[in-house]
Structure formats: C-alpha cells, structure tokens
C-alpha cells in the first residue's frame, strides 16, 4: 500500500546519459555494486544458516589474510591475467575470441612438448629450458588463434563459433597425448618435469630470504604484468595498436585509411592466442609441473572474457581485476560449504554488469504532481 501511494507521489525515470560521467563516477559505481553484492550474498548466507560476517571474514582471510594466502591468490590470478589480456586485445578489434580457453590449453601443451617429446634433453639448464618452453607455448596458442582468424579473414566464418569449437579440440588433443604416448604408468597425466623446466618460485629463494619459505608465487605473475604493460604500450602507443583501435571503432574508416583488415584480423587473433598460450605455459611450468587436463581446462579462458569486460579492455586495470578474481577462486577452495564463494562471485558479477547500466543511464526521481 505504502509503495503504491509513493509511486503515485513520485515518478522514477530512466534517461539515457548524454554527458560523459565525471572520472570518479565509474569506479564508485563499481565499488557500490560490489558492496550491494556482498549485502545480498550476506543475506543468502544468513538464509542458509551461516553467519555472514564470519563467512566474509573467512573469505578475506582465505585470500588476503597472510603472506602465504596472498601468494596463493597471485598464483590463481596469473592464468586469469593472461587469458584476460588475450580476450581484451581481440575484443578491442571487436573480434569475439571465445577460444582463449583452448589457446590456453594449447599453450600448456606446447610448453610440455618441449620437455616430453623431448625437444630439449632433461639435463638442459633452466635459462634455456624456460624460454624455449615459452616460445613453444606461445606458438601453439598463436596457432590456435590463427585458425579462427584465418577462417574469419578469408571466408568470413564467424569467429565465435570456430574459436569455441577449437576449445573442445584442444581438450581432446591433450587427452590423446596424456592418455597414450605421454601417460605416466597408465595415469592420465604426464611424468613430472625436471626441475630445470619449472618457472622459479619465491620459495626457491627462501635460503637467502627466509620470508619466502613456502610461497608458491612463480615468475608467471611477473611475466603477466610485463605482458600487460607491453600490451598497454601496443594498444595506446604503437602504430599497430592505433590500427586495431581504428578497426574496432569503425572498420569502414579503417579501410578508408588504407588499413588491411584481413591481415589484422589474423594477426590480432594470433596475438590473442599467443597471450593465452603464454598463460598455459606459465601454468604448466609454474604450478602443475606436468601435463594434465583438469588443471588446464579449468575455465580460465572463460573467466578471462568476464575480466576483460569488467576492466573495459584496459590492460592495466586487468591486472587488478585478475587479482580480485584470483582471490575469489581461492576462497572457493577454502570455504565450506564450497558453493558459497561461487555464488557470491556470481552475485558480484551480476551486480557489476548491472551497474554498467548506471553508466549509460541516469535515474531521476520527480514528484508526480510537478510533471505536466
């Protein structure tokens, strides 16, 4: 009743926003969305009989509470960072690469192939092993990006479909190898890599810096941050990045400026695949230390799509958002019942996406009587 009478008195209107909102507005809206999501999540936790405050405190502790879990958060954030960068560069050109997942997996395969084929003998020193694995990982990812790119450029095949399909092929492909040729004693995983093929981790330095004892953060995070900075440079400061932005904004204008759209379609898809492949490499060489399906095909490619969007395709923002998502993933492992963090993650996502609406529209409340 009360609501009814209120609605008679006030009218709420949505209007498209005509001015660009001031700079502080978008971050504030995102922050507000997260707060609202946490409130909703809290209500839900209370509903299933939990104490929302304790749960949240637990989640916070589980992902940022000590140097140990912060390190774990960063480990989780690394693959997300790479796939998000991969998606961001493709989306910048309005190429809807849904295949970061497959490109990531192939990157892991390429890196593993260096050890398992073997392309380099096991006694190879680390300074050679790691770069060669990176090169192979990126090449395999780039190949997985090249295929949908080429099909799009040459035959105008929809890249959403083709890149999505390639995800399944990638999974089948590594399964083929670890079930057969590279299987370790019949288990569905390859033998463990020699130490030299591992990315250095913080704990490797615990002899000199005792603080690093037990920290599994590996060089992949550093590589990822470097990749993000490099990507920023490419997008905003390079000739090629300019071409990508131009094509993304108006392909006809790009054509008019003499830019070859087909070639860029292929190149950008390859760069995208390369970044995702690099993520697969760092995951294999930094965390898993062997080739195995489940840790690779864990949905990082899809999380990357979301993170890229939430970050508005900005490479440096992606670093921060990836770490947040890494934390949520980690909390998912730690918390019981384990569905809760997933659910909160979902609610935060929905709220963030909905808040985007507020950036494009504004709400105006007016007294009904005043309206003519």
């Amino acid at each position, binding site marked *: 009743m009360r609501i009814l009478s209120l609605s008679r008195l006030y009218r709420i209107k949505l209007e498209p926003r005509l001015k660009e909102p001031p700079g502080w507005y978008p971050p504030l809206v995102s922050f507000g969305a997260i707060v609202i999501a946490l409130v909703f999540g809290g209500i839900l936790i209370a509903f299933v009989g939990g104490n929302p405050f304790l749960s949240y405190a637990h989640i916070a502790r589980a992902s940022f509470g000590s140097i140990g879990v912060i390190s774990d958060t960063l480990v989780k954030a690394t693959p997300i960072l790479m796939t998000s960068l991969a998606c961001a560069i493709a989306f910048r050109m309005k190429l809807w690469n849904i295949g970061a997942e497959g490109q990531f997996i192939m990157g892991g395969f390429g890196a593993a192939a260096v050890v398992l084929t073997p392309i380099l003998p096991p006694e190879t020193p680390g300074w050679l092993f790691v770069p060669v694995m990176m090169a192979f990982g990126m090449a395999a990812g780039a190949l997985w990006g090249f295929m949908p790119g080429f099909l799009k450029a040459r035959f105008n095949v929809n890249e959403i479909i083709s890149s999505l399909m390639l995800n399944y092929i990638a999974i089948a492909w590594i399964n083929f190898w670890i079930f057969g040729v590279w299987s370790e004693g019949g288990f569905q995983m390859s033998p463990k890599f020699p130490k030299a093929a591992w990315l250095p981790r913080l704990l490797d330095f615990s002899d000199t810096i005792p603080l690093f004892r037990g920290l599994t953060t590996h060089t992949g995070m550093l590589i990822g941050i470097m990749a993000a900075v490099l990507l920023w440079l490419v997008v905003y400061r390079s000739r090629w990045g300019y071409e990508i932005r131009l094509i993304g*904004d108006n392909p006809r204008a790009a054509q008019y400026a003499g830019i070859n759209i087909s070639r860029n379609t292929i190149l950008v898809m390859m760069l995208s695949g390369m970044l995702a492949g690099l993520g697969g490499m760092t995951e294999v060489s930094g965390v898993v230390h062997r080739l195995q399906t489940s840790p690779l095909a864990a949905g990082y490619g899809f999380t990357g799509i979301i993170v890229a969007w939430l970050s508005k395709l900005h490479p440096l923002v992606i670093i921060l958002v990836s770490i947040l998502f890494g934390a949520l993933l980690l909390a998912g492992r730690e918390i019981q019942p384990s569905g809760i963090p997933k659910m909160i993650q979902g609610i935060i996502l929905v709220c963030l996406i909905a808040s985007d609406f507020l950036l494009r529209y504004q709400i105006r409340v007016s007294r009904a009587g005043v309206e*003519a």
Partner: protein
Amino acid sequence: MVKSESAIQTEENTVVRMAGIVKRFPGVLANDHVDFELKRGEIHALLGENGAGKSTLMNILAGLYRPDEGEIIIRGEVENFSSPRDAINAGIGMVHQHFMLVPSQTVTENVLLGLDEPRFFMRLKEYDTKIASLSEQFGLKVDPKANIWQLSVGEQQRVEILKMLYRGAEVLIMDEPTAVLAPQEIKGLFEILRSMTEQGKSIIFISHKLNEVVEIADRISVLRRGKATANGLSSEGVTTKELARQMVGREVIFRLEKQASNPGDIVLDVRKVFAENDKGLSALSGLSLQVRAGEIVGVAGVAGNGQRELAQLISGLRNCAQGEILLHNEKISNRSTLYGIEQGMAYVPEDRTQVGSAPNLSVTDNVIMKTYRQPPISRGGLLDMSQANRFAEELKLAYDIIVPTVDTPVRLLSGGNLQRVILAREISGRPDFMVAVQPTRGLDVGAIEGVHRLLLAQRDEGAGVLLVSEELEELFALSDRIYVIYEGKIMGEVNIGLEEPSDQVVDMIGLMMTGTPMEKIGEGL
C-alpha cells in the same frame, strides 16, 4: 526589442517559447541564454555557424537534452521534458539529420515502431491505409508497404516526417533536412513543408543554405557562438548577404576571386571503367575522364548516378570490372587503398560519419589517419603522441575546429566541425591529387568560403582536384571543366571560364543531367 516584447506578452498564436536557455558541455557553452519563439503556422529558420548551438537548442526542445537553465513554454504551459517521448506528447517532433529507421522493415512498421498501439496483433493492413491517408493529406508521397532499404534518401526523410505526424506532432523540427537531398528533392520537401503549415503545423528549419532559407522561411533566428543575434527576423526583403553577416559577424564574399587555371600534365586518367554498386547492379558503364595538374574538374549529376562508386574506385575502396585508372601514369585501379594514399592522393568521402571518421576516437586519432605511418608521428613502430597532439592542435587552429580539447571523441563534435576535421586531415597533406565528394556539406557560409579558397589554392599550387557535387553553384564557382554524369556514363564536358556561365550552358548541363548526351543537344540547338 523583439526579445523584450515577446518575453512579456504571451501571444495567442505562439506555440513554443524558449526563454533564457543555457546549456553547457564540458569546455563549451553551447547555448548562452537563448530566447526563441515559434508562431503557429510559420516556417522558422534557425541559422548559425558550425558549432553555434543550433542542434543543441533543438535537441533541448525535442527532449533529448535538458537545459541547465531557462524554461520551455508550450502553448502557455511550462514544460519539463525528460525524454523525446515527453516532447512528442506535447506535440513536438524532430527529424534528425541521421535517420533512425529500420532498413529491413516496411514504412508502416517503422512508423508504428515504439508505439503502444497496436498492442499485440499487428493489423498491418488497417494501419497501411491509415498511414496512406495521412501521407496523402500532407503530400508525403511514399508507399506504406515498401521496405525502407528500397527508398531513396528523400523518401526516407518523408517516412521520418510521417512518423512524427502520426505521433501527433504540431511542431516539426528539421535539422539540416536539405543537406542530404538532391535539388529536385528539395523542391518536393518545400512543397510538403508548405502544405503542413497551411494545415496549422509549425516548422523549425535548420539550414546553412541561405538562399533556401530566404525562399522558404517566414521568420529567421540566428545564433552566434551560443548567443541569439537575431530573433524572429521577418524574411521579407532580407538578402543572403545580410544573413551571412548576422551569422558570421563580418562580410562574406560569395563570388570568389578565381585566377585563370594553368593545366599541366594529366594526373588522373580514368579509362572506360565499368563497376557495380553495393547491390550488384551496374553503376559505371564505360566511363572515362581526365584531370590535369593545376585544374579543378567538376562532376555534375543527380545523386545516385555513379558518383559515389567513381570516387570509391579512384580511392581504391572498390574494384572495377573492366577498364583502368592511372595516377601519374601508374595503374591504381584494383590495387589497395594504401597504394593510393602512398601516391599522395587525398579523398574527402561523402559520408563523414560512416566512412570519414571513427566516432569514439579522439580528434587527434582522427586527424592522423593518413599520416600515422610517417615520421614525425611514427617513430619506429611507435606513435609519438606528443607530435600527434601537436599536429592536431595545429589543424584545430588553422581550420578553426571548435572543440574543447583534441582528446575529445569526435562523436561529440557538431556536424560542421566534424567535416572540418576531415577536410583538415585531407588537405593538410598537400596532396597532388584529390577527390572531394560534397566537401562543403553541412558547412556554414564562412566555412564554405574557406574551403573554396583552400581548394583553389591547391589548384594554383599545381594539384589536380576532382570535385563531385550536386550543387551546380559550387561547381561553377570552382571548376575549370565540368563533366556531367548520368547512369554511369559521361554525357558531355563543358569548359567553365572565369565569368558566370551563361543560361545556355546551364540549360545544357541540366539536359545532360537528365540523360541527353551532348551531341544530341548540339543537333537541337
């Protein structure tokens, strides 16, 4: 004086009164305490330079923008629009320069789009007849059952008008309606506007073409840099010269000082080209023409006779099926667009928003479209953004582009200012050959004068210019020779001296434009 009177009295036949309207955009005062008054049954022209604030003022009246200050009074009642829907409910409809129609749907469907009526079942037949009778009432000839994509630009405009009339518009705002129309279509539009005012509708009409304004408008208001400099001037006895002075604040020379041309070698040689248009129909059939260094060559013709395709062919955006095009004796047809750019060719496309610019990128990003590959802007694969910004600042100054900063996305620029960005980019490269399609579309008189000067200066420095325009006046003012195009063929070629062409020449061009080849005219005379 007109202002203070109208502010006090509320005359009975005043439909719209806007008082003290202020609208600020970041860095721009688009409307600065503007008063505006519209009477019932009049055609009221709104004039002003590019970026003067005309579109902004009308967008406020149509409910798209909210004013920062001031009030809008419709038939004596203060209104507070927060959406175009509110405005149309108060009887105010606007036809924008860029149409907002759904190409794959019929006229009727487009008119009904977004209305509460018909609710679920589309009894289209019934509405077809309704809309047919409405269009008949105002002389808006258009088939309700036709799909939008089949219609010409003029017909699409009529659909936009119908849409507003169907929603009960009493006041119709038209933002540069004639900029996209061919001369014949303009005549048709004027008849429609007159028939609407006879039936009690009121019309606000924005245009940069002063002779048009003198012909059609009953009263005229002028904006200059956001302020009203004339309010409801009677159009009786007003000359275009006077109007131009009101707008620009100085004398505008209409007749350019043109030196005799000094043509050199052939720069562009189009040899018997055949090409298709987007729909796969024949657009050019065996067209040949030449442009020499140091001359401006006009292409006259009714829109849609292959001008667009010809320009695309030369710039490398389209391939020809037969024939070839040479630039400096090198074949450029069916090669990449980049090749032409590298050969120093500039191209002002007819469509500034769809082809000529990237709306969400900044002014800087838009002006370096042709030069980003060369130093000093390009430095070993990287872009030197400080150089790029400096370049943009220079062009902003030299071409009088009104924009707060060069970081502004160009979608926020006024129509004329966007055109200036494109012209600045193309001309600043000092090309030795240039294709310009409707280069002055949407520009104010002062700016047109400026562009004409620039084109002539280019010519005098030895550049060849191919000028495609639908405005004969512009062609006569600039061209040394004019080709007349009809259905993808050249009907004939006319030399233009320094004097105004005789009536005989004008008639001849008119005949060729409607499909009579030059030889036949010679026989008749």
